[in-house]
Structures are given as structure tokens and as C-alpha cells.
């Protein structure tokens, strides 16, 4: 008898805030400047210097908390988290510990545990100088990134597959982008994700031993990494072994997981309240300001799309979770060239996305109005859907007006007149085998006849009409 296992996943996401200055000093944030050109005595941890909290980082933290439906702490404080590493100039990171800015909350199906503020570490670049292993190798520290404001979002273990983790992260990213609090770019490190993963037999409610998968830097790698780790844990358990609590790194090139050597004292951070800072007491004015700045969020937008435009939940989410798709869709609907929002939604999420991939349709040559017109032509049967796709190809390549493209390419749908009857008669004459089979009751043989008509008419014929005419002419 085989047991099947269910993975349980919690995520820890670090988000670099897009403030102008660092968390605790007035250095500008860095975007690839010369190393150590965005530093000052404070972010270099020089003796006698003191941190001062960036007001906008608190505002952004509040926006995130409100967007996630968190409880905002009336009074939160910073702690020092002590450990030695060259990317940590003071020998401690200023972070929040037992009283974070935001507690609890929910985004989509996933409950939020907490949201807190802290400062980012500097960048440490390994530099093997001698070429010999374990000898004279060195690293170089660039403090430009050190002190960048970070928000850490921790979810409850509320995710049950790698695909769900990926989809939820997409929602989180869109939400954060919509809030305007971060660039949320995984490749550039402004959004970083760790995953805590355990497995348990289906039906169990207690959590198994978890492992931590560190710093995956793309959505694809997150999904693959989590899947690889789930498979590894299942294999271990099925072989009668146990899962050890450890931190792992996923190498996307080889698909392998490697255990990161645990530091001997990694879990004694000696947290204590930061005496150089005073408490953050969120005032009514601060809350009111955050509420006023809160835009419509993806989850709300999806709900609105579902209700207002009669979209399926799935399509509504596809549009709302990619802000640019949702914006494009709303612009297309607003142009009033087509009164069928569901059809527009389906063309945007289907045909348009198939052609543009992850690109922003707002940047493409297809204007929302053009798309709306195109869908209108198809809906009113002036254009078959097949011919519509050809028109869309042209619009993606060259832009322009769909009606004009339809005319110039001769793609307008044929009406059910003599021309179509003639084309059907030609097809019957050219395909005696198919006609014989059809007469024998083999219904699928009609496909060859319809295909013939479509080829000859460049797809301008309406499939249903062709079927009707074939049957009529054969007296079936």
C-alpha cells in the first residue's frame, strides 16, 4: 500500500522598498553605480554614527500592511539582530523582532503571519585571487546596497504546491507593484523569496520537519526548486529516512539542491531593543494617509471584473494579477467598439498574450481600441475568428486599423450567397472519398470538406454555414 504525501509550504519574501534614500541614512539608493559611491559614515557603520528612520519606509510598510489586511501595531519597535559578516557593517542588523509593524493578514488564499521592516545587507563579491583552493581567496564588499529599506513578508504555511506558490507570488508582486512601493524585480533582487517546505501524509494535520530553500531569483526557479525539494523529501521518507532541518540552495542549471553549511552560532542572534531608535507609533493621520494612497488591488480588481463584466474567475484573475493586462483590458472595454467584454477578455488573455508573452500590450502596436474593434468584427460575424487571428498577426507586426487590414487582405467573412455555395460544390466534387464516407454515416469525414472550403476562401467562410451547405447539397 502506498502513502501519498502532501507538501506544506510557507514563504518568506524580502522586498526592497523604492524609497529615494536608505532606511537609516540619507544616501540615495543604488542602481549599479560605482561600488561604494552611495555610502556615508552611517551606512558604513563608522564609530559614533546613529540611525534615523526614513519616514517614507514607514509609510510604505503601512501601505503593504493595509493591502494585506494586516493588523497595524499601535506601537512597534526595532531590535538589533547580532551576527558577524562582512556585508553587515555594524555587526548587527536593525530589524523588527517581537513587535513588527504589521501582524497577520491575508492575500488571496494565503494567510500572512507578519510584515516587518529592516535594512538590507551589503553586496559581497567573491574574488578568488590565487586560483588555489582554500588559500588566499578573498571577497570584496560594496556597501551601496547596504541599508536599503527592506520589508519582510512571512506567510503562514498555507501553500500546498509549487505551482500555487508561484501563482501566489505573482499576485503578491502585482499587489506590491500596484502599491508603488517596490520595483519587485526578482532578477535584480528587489524581490527575493525563501521557501519553508515540509511534507506530510495526506490527511495528517501536523507539520513535518521543514527545510528552508534560500534565495531563488526567478518565478520559474521557485517553482522548479520547490518541486525538486518536495521530490527529494518524498524520496527520503519513502526510503525510510528522515528529513533533516537544514537550509538548501537550488541550482537551476543542474536542478540540484545543495545543503548550505550551517553556521555554528547561526541561531543565537542575541536580539535586544535598539537603543538608538525610539518607537514607531502609528497615528490616525498616518493611517488616513495610507488609506487614501491605497489603490485598487489585484484581488479586488479580479472580483470587480467577475461581477461587472461577467468574466470567469480564472480569466478575471489572469487580467487582474497582471496589472498591465487589466489596464489594457479596461481601456479596450472603454473604447466602446465592442459590447462584449467577455469576448475582449478572452482575446486579451488568449490570442494577445500568446503573441506578446510577458510583454506589456500597452507597449505593443495593437491599441486597445484596435483590439476592441477586431473583437467587434468577429462578434458580429463580419470576420471569422480564424481570419481575426490573421488580422491580429498583422496588427501585432505593423499596427493599424483592423477593418482596413481586413479589407486590404480580403479577409471579410463571406455571406451565405452563391459564392459560398459554389465553393462548397467545388469541395464536394474534389473529395469523392470523403463524400462516400459521409454518406456511410462517418460524420468526421465532413472535416475534409470544410478544410477544403476554408483553404479556398482563406478562412473567410463561416464553419457552421459551410456544414449546413454541405448537408443541404448532399441531401443529407
Amino acid at each position, binding site marked *: 500500500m502506498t502513502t501519498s504525501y502532501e507538501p506544506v509550504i510557507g514563504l518568506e519574501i524580502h522586498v526592497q522598498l523604492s524609497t529615494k534614500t536608505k532606511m537609516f541614512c540619507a544616501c540615495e539608493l543604488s542602481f549599479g553605480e560605482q561600488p561604494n559611491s552611495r555610502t556615508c*559614515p552611517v551606512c*558604513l*557603520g*563608522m*564609530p*559614533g*554614527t*546613529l*540611525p*534615523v*528612520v526614513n519616514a517614507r519606509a514607514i509609510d510604505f510598510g503601512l501601505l503593504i500592511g493595509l493591502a494585506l489586511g494586516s493588523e497595524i501595531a499601535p506601537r512597534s519597535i526595532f531590535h*538589533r539582530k*547580532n551576527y*558577524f559578516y*562582512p556585508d553587515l*557593517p*555594524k*555587526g*548587527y542588523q536593525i530589524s523588527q523582532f517581537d513587535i513588527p509593524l504589521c501582524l497577520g493578514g491575508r492575500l488571496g488564499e494565503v494567510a500572512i503571519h507578519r510584515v516587518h521592516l529592516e535594512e538590507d545587507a551589503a553586496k559581497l563579491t567573491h574574488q578568488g585571487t590565487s586560483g588555489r583552493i*582554500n*588559500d*588566499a*581567496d578573498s*571577497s570584496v*564588499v560594496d556597501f551601496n546596497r547596504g541599508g536599503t529599506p527592506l520589508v519582510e513578508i512571512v506567510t503562514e504555511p498555507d501553500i500546498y504546491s509549487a505551482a500555487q506558490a508561484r501563482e501566489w507570488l505573482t499576485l503578491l508582486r502585482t499587489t506590491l507593484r500596484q502599491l508603488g512601493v517596490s520595483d519587485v524585480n526578482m532578477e535584480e533582487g528587489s524581490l527575493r523569496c525563501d521557501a519553508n517546505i515540509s511534507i506530510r501524509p495526506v490527511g495528517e494535520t501536523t507539520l513535518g520537519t521543514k527545510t528552508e530553500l534560500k534565495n531563488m531569483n526567478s518565478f520559474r526557479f521557485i517553482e522548479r526548486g520547490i518541486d525538486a525539494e518536495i521530490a527529494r523529501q518524498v524520496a527520503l521518507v519513502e526510503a525510510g529516512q528522515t528529513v533533516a532541518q537544514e537550509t538548501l540552495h537550488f541550482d537551476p542549471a543542474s536542478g540540484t539542491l545543495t545543503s548550505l553549511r550551517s553556521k555554528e552560532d547561526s*541561531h*543565537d542572534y*542575541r*536580539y*535586544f531593543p535598539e*537603543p*538608538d*531608535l*525610539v518607537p514607531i507609533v502609528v497615528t490616525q493621520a498616518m493611517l488616513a494617509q495610507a488609506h487614501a494612497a491605497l489603490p485598487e488591488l489585484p484581488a479586488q480588481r479580479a472580483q470587480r471584473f467577475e461581477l461587472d463584466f461577467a468574466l470567469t474567475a480564472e480569466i478575471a484573475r489572469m487580467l487582474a494579477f497582471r496589472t498591465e493586462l487589466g489596464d489594457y483590458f479596461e481601456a479596450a472595454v472603454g473604447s466602446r467598439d465592442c459590447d462584449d467584454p467577455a469576448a475582449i477578455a478572452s482575446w486579451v488573455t488568449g490570442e494577445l498574450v500568446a503573441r506578446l508573452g510577458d510583454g506589456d500590450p500597452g507597449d505593443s502596436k495593437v491599441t486597445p481600441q484596435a483590439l476592441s474593434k477586431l473583437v467587434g468584427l468577429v462578434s458580429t460575424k463580419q470576420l471569422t475568428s480564424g481570419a481575426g487571428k490573421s488580422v491580429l498577426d498583422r496588427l501585432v507586426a505593423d499596427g493599424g486599423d483592423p477593418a482596413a487590414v481586413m479589407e486590404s487582405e480580403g479577409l471579410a467573412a463571406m455571406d451565405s450567397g452563391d459564392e459560398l455555395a459554389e465553393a462548397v460544390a467545388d469541395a464536394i466534387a474534389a473529395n469523392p472519398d470523403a463524400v462516400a464516407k459521409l454518406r456511410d454515416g462517418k460524420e468526421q469525414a465532413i472535416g475534409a470538406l470544410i478544410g477544403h472550403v476554408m483553404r479556398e476562401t482563406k478562412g473567410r467562410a463561416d464553419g457552421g454555414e459551410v456544414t449546413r451547405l454541405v448537408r443541404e447539397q448532399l441531401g443529407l
Partner: protein
Amino acid sequence: MSEILDLTAAAAGAAVRSGELGASELFEFYRQRAQDDQLNAFTWVAEATPGEAAIDGPLSGVPLAVKDLFCTKGIVSQSGSRILEGFRPPYSATVVEQLENAGAPLFAKTNQDEFAMGSSNENSAFGPVFNPWDVTRVPGGSSGGSAAAVAAGSAPWALGTDTGGSIRQPASFCGIVGLKPTYGAVSRYGMIAFASSLDQAGVLTRDVTDAALLLSEMVGRDPRDSTSLEYPGSLVLPTGRDLSGIRLGVPEELTEGVEGIEPGVRAVFDDALRTAESMGATVETCRLPHAPHALSAYYLIAPAEASANLSRYDGVRFGLRVEGDGDLKEMYERTRSAGFGPEVKRRIMLGTYALSSGYYDAYYGRAQRVRTKIAEDFNTAFESFDFIVTPTSPSVAFKLGARTADPLAMYLSDYFTVPMSLAGIPAISIPAGLSEGLPVGLQIAGPAFSEQRILEAAYALEGAFAFDASGARRSGSK
């Protein structure tokens, strides 16, 4: 030249303003005195006297000595430690900037216990400082260099810092005035940190008037220090003549049956109380029930904060580095082991232990609760008393080396000063008399931001004590 030596800073400033004395002449006088210093009180002395500058600030060009731990732009700032060997900060402490702008140019930096950890100035990478009253004795610490320099007349006035008594105790040992302001009254930016929630800059001066003058230019909120406060009101030169209506509280817990309080110190203290009564004050015993536990709380809180504050000395961005065999951890350990002296290591160890997993609640957490009770005790006492008075230190200046072998005995010399530090309240030490030919300080502590009232009372008492410190001024220098 002896005339200049006899001028207080305020008097010297007045002479500069009236044109009797040139600001350059004054600067050069003290620069020379500092250079000729025999007490090891200085870690740096200006190489030259600046040309005659317009002295329009309220401090009138009277040059200032500052404790090594204040960062001074382009000038070595080591906090008495080898680990900051050669460190020239690209910035100055806010308070140093403020005083330079007010017309007190920096002319020297003074020796101190390493990272302000010590009560005798024997824990310095630059060697010990000697007491100008008796060079076989310590000047107290940690601001020992500042105290000795002012007492010996090789600085007109000086900045120090006080974490648990580091201004008041050396002021007492050297027979000068030392004032620790309310926590938050003076910016900490650019002060090399020992214990962030306790550290406070203050003044060491020849008399109470100088203390008021210098402090009046130091207080105020600094946007670079989140824990600094707007000073309520302003500080003016004191004019108090008597103590009528002043209620002095003598804490029973600190003065009754305390072991180690020297009879000579007790006698000077009792005399001082009688003098105060003769000037119109009432003297009564008061209660500070948790004060006997202050030292314990202090020796958990201060080392804990210090253990984190001193983590930045890692051989990466500034100061000393001692390489190992190429491994990062080894570089850290060798650098820190070579760079820190024994007392600093001891406190880092104590603080790290107090914060470590499993001990936080029993040690650090408890100490913070004791701190709450101590602050409450003071609040209650100040409902019935204007000031709390104690001897500043249980003893007079002790012999060099007398307590170095016994950390606990050394820590006990902060017995009277630590409670005020934990409560964050201001306190002054003024010389009240001699015991065995050595100065004894009287400590006067008041509620937060009561500096002006403390200065008035201290000024009145100073007049009555008529303490003569001129002997030390003539002994400290060639």
C-alpha cells in the same frame, strides 16, 4: 603667564572679549601647557595655533579639550583603543561642531579608559593618566584625561562622557566640577558608543559657572540623533546665593551602612550637608529602595549594549586588522583579540552572555525591569525633595594598580553615580573638601531637565565651600 592660568574659562573669555587677551595667545598658552603635560592626559595636541580668528561666538575663543571618543574630522579618534589605531573620521561629533561654532576651538584630545570602560583611566591603549593631586594615584575614569587636564590647568575646560559616572567620578577625584546632563539633552552623534541608552556627553570645568557656560552651548535636538530632545528653556549663568527652601534628600540605601565608604569621605559629606543647612536647605533621609541593585542592573545593561556596539570593530572598514591564515573568522578573532584590552573583552563577554539564548530574561530582561523601578524610585523621591545628594564616590582617588586585579572592587567605585545614569537624570559633582589631602566630590542630582536648578544650588554651595584647587594646577605641568 600665570595670570592666564588663574583665569576660569568664563573669565578668560571675558578677557578676550574686552581685548585684554588675544584669542591666539590664549590658545597658544594652553597648547603649550598641553604639550608639556606630564600626566599623560592627552592623546593629541594641536600642532599650531590658528591665526587670529574673529571670536564672536559666546564662548569667546576659549580653547576646548575633548575626550578621545568624540569623533573629530581628520583627527585621530580612537576612544582609547588600539582597535581604532589611526582612525581619522571624515566627520565630527555634533557637540564638537556646536562648540566650535560657538567659539570654543578644539586644541587637544584627552586620554580615557578604552571605550569609556573603566573608573581609573588605567584601561587605555595610550597608558594610564596620573592624578595631578598625587601622581601615584589615578584620576578616576573613564574621562580621566579630561579631568586631570582641567585640574592641572592644561585645559581651560573639557568635554567628557558619562555612562555610569565617567564624568562625575573623575571630577571628584581631581577636585573639579563635572556635570552629566539629562539623557537626550546633548546629541550623541559622533560619540563613539559604549552603552547607547546611558551614554551622555557632559562637561568638566574648574567651576560651576564654566560648566553652565559650556553646557548652554551643547544642549538641543540633533536631527542625526533620534534620542535627542529639544531642551526646554535655556541655560544661563547661575547666580544662586543661598539654598533657602531647598529640600535635600540623602538616600538611606546609599549612605547608611554602606561598606567601603571611606570615613574621610563621609566626614566631608556630613560637613557639606551642615553647610547646606546653614544656607537654608533642609536635609532629610529619603528612600531609593532599588538603588542598591543599580550597579547589578548597570553591569548587565551597559555590557549588553556594548557587546553590540563593539561588533563593528571587525577589521573591515577602519582601524586595526590582524590577518590570520586567510580565513575570515580567524581575521575577526585575531583583530578583536589584539585590538581590545582586557576590560573591554571582559565586558563584551559579560554582555554577550547576558543576551545569549536562554539567559536574556534572567539577566538583560530583569535588569531592564530593575531600571524601571530605579527610575520610579527617583520620581517618588522628587515629589518630596528638590535634589538627591550623595558623595560622588565612596573613596578618594586610589593608588594606581590598587584595583586592577579585582574588577568587582573597581565596579563598586560607581556605586553612587550609576543609579542616576539608569534613570537618565542630571547630576553634578562639585569639590566639597579634602580627605587625606585629596579632593572629595559632592553629587547633586535632580529630575530630568533640572540642570539650571542644579547649577544654581551647586553655585551657591561652591561659594560656601571655597575649595582651593590652585595647588593641583601648578603641579601638573613643567
